[in-house]
């Protein structure tokens, strides 16, 4: 996994990747522990909000409204940001965004940048592009720093290094920061990171950030974080380059009133983010002297055009769905082969990447609905998963075993006569596989082909002699 970018075009399909992830007991323990802790905190701070459901509904409305008028709000943002002294760039796709950012950095004459965590820069694989251009990026978010030094990949959208435990982190710091004496208390690790980063903050003159929200009404950009590294990256450099998906816009400043309540509670179980930075263009007296923002589409307008998939864009990247998802909790994030993992990744990645590269992801869910239940903007993730599964089926056509079986079953269910015949046939077909147990009950311990997944760890009871409908009919004629 290390070093290679997560990309569904090259990653193994989910069931295969999940199998190898699940073989890593340390990783599973770390993921389980971290998600348990965050879920517990989230439940506590959500529980103290009597109007949580109303807030969710308000969050959903704001996002829905924005998406319905995205063009208007993007233009409004561009106007107001420009007026405040920012420079707005538009990028159609990842390649264009990378090119714009690399050129902007080069123009500053700097061969280093400090970065504040941004899933969007992961999405477009910015770091390798910077390095290829001779520019060294320094991640300043603690988790991203761990990932970068460990030559690893993020596995969670809010807590990217949640698959690592303290001992593993200490080992990475010890070797990569050259600190043979490093202690293992959290304080020791935090101190080491602080020393390492402080020097970068003071030296590097160009910053690259993501954005949590773009405010159309003011042209301002909002980043929320917990460590203060963001505040440093956003204020100390001479040039600040921000990259954001076009879905990040919100209409009014006041909309943050809702979103900045639901986001931190859902993401990290905090009532409020310790650092909420909003900057609007540039100011001669303070902060960066040049501000650029790259507004990137990268398939988002296509998602917007799909009436059923559209709600995916309402996501505010809180990661709550990941922590709640029983599948993610078993496998961790890397199994998704995508920078966006868990339930949101399972719906976002296939739409961002063109379906054929991520066909297994919409099936990486039992449709239990835990993700929908926690989503602070009420994205009906199961509904979108089903919608995408239909796209997978349509892409694959009818020439495979599963599709043929499904079609046959469909035909059977369309006629009572055929259904009854199939019930009888089933009893005959299964009979060579059935073994009687001590109580005279029949069980199947092995099934062929696709169904073999079932009998790896489970038995299947043999079919009863009489169906309900047979019993019902007999009962009618017997007069009970």
């Amino acid at each position: 996994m290390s070093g290679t970018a997560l990309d569904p075009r090259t990653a193994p399909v989910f069931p295969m990747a999940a199998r190898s992830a699940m073989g890593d007991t340390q990783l599973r323990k770390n993921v389980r522990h971290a998600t348990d802790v965050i879920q517990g905190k989230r439940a506590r701070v959500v529980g103290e909000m009597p109007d949580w459901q109303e807030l969710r509904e308000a969050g959903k409305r704001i996002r829905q409204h924005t998406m319905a008028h995205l063009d208007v709000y993007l233009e409004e943002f561009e106007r107001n940001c420009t007026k405040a002294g920012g420079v707005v760039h538009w990028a159609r796709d990842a390649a264009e965004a990378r090119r714009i950012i690399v050129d902007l950095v080069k123009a500053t004459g700097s061969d280093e940048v400090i970065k504040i965590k941004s899933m969007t820069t992961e999405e477009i694989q910015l770091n390798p592009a910077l390095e290829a251009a001779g520019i060294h990026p320094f991640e300043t978010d603690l988790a991203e720093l761990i990932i970068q030094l460990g030559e690893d990949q993020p596995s969670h959208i809010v807590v990217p290094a949640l698959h690592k435990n303290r001992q593993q982190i200490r080992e990475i710091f010890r070797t990569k920061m050259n600190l043979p004496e490093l202690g293992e208390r959290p304080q020791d690790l935090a101190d080491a990171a602080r020393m390492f980063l402080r020097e970068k903050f003071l030296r590097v003159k160009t910053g690259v950030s993501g954005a949590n929200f773009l405010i159309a009404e003011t042209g301002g950009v909002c980043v929320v974080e917990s460590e203060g590294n963001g505040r440093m990256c956003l204020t100390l450099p001479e040039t600040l380059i921000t990259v954001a998906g076009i879905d990040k816009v919100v209409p009014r400043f006041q909309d943050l009133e809702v979103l900045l309540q639901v986001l931190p509670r859902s993401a990290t179980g905090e009532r409020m983010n310790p650092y909420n930075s909003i900057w609007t263009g540039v100011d001669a007296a303070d902060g960066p002297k040049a501000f650029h923002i790259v507004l990137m589409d990268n398939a988002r307008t296509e998602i917007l055009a799909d009436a059923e998939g559209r709600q995916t864009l309402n996501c505010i990247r809180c990661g709550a769905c990941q922590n709640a998802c029983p599948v993610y909790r078993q496998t961790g994030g890397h199994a998704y082969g995508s920078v966006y993992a868990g339930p949101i990744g399972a719906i976002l990645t296939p739409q961002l990447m063109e379906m054929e590269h991520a066909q297994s992801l919409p099936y990486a869910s039992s449709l239990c609905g835990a993700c929908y239940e926690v989503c602070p903007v009420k994205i009906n993730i199961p509904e979108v998963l089903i919608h995408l599964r239909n796209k997978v089926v349509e892409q694959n056509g009818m020439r495979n075993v599963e599709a043929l079986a499904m079609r046959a079953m469909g035909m059977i269910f369309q006629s009572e006569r055929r259904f009854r015949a199939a019930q009888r046939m089933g009893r005959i077909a299964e009979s060579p596989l059935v073994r009687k147990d001590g109580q005279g009950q029949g069980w199947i311990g092995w099934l062929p082909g696709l169904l073999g997944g079932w009998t790896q760890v489970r038995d299947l009871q043999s079919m009863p002699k009489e169906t309900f409908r047979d019993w019902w009919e007999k009962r009618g004629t017997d007069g009970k």
Partner: protein
Amino acid sequence: MRVSLFITCYNDTLFPETGKAVVRVLERLGHTVEFPAGQTCCGQMHWNTGYQAEALPLLSRFVAQFKGAEVVVVPSSSCVAMMRDHYPKMAEQLNDAALKREVEELLPKVFEFSEFLTKRLGLEDVGAYYPHRVTYHASCHGLRNLGLGDGPLRLLRAVRGIDLVELQGVEQCCGFGGTFAVKNAEVSSAMLAEKTTAILNTRAEACTACDNSCLMHLQGALHRQRTGVETVHLAEILASDDGTR
């Protein structure tokens, strides 16, 4: 009341005892029960796996069978969730105004079995006797899509002789998820293992739920591991009595 039963393809074929139990409880409560013979499947498996074209005709079939019903009772939370969450959209997709109207009229009359007892009839005690140690698993669809809440538990608490024990992580998915159990067999098994461990920790003799699909999944592992723990649909517990009635 005249109650029409939708027994589901799954219960009909694999778990007929559940349907019989539903009949028994409803008749004991004085209702008239009917079973429209042309019913087959709600279309859930097809729809949820992505086979919309195969699922759509099953909607029309369901509506044709139950059009005039006073109420429809279904002993499966996931099938009812399928109908409530997706039938209106399917009717929309078929672009059939009459069908759409019929679906709108029919859906409010469709109830999951425990929901029918607690919400529609306002009952808790249905006169059952079941002297066993039992734990209850809240199926995801019942819990989240139908919002059954503690309805099933209230019914169980009113059963005479029962020793009802709480299941740790009662709201966690058992890992079945229809074709998920086959397509992602490893992950499904890992989720299942957590659930069976929790069940064994209760030292219950039986685990119950409002959905035979979860129960079949649990039963498969409990049997493979030779635990001796049984699975039993809620309706079957409620149908049991001590023979004095």
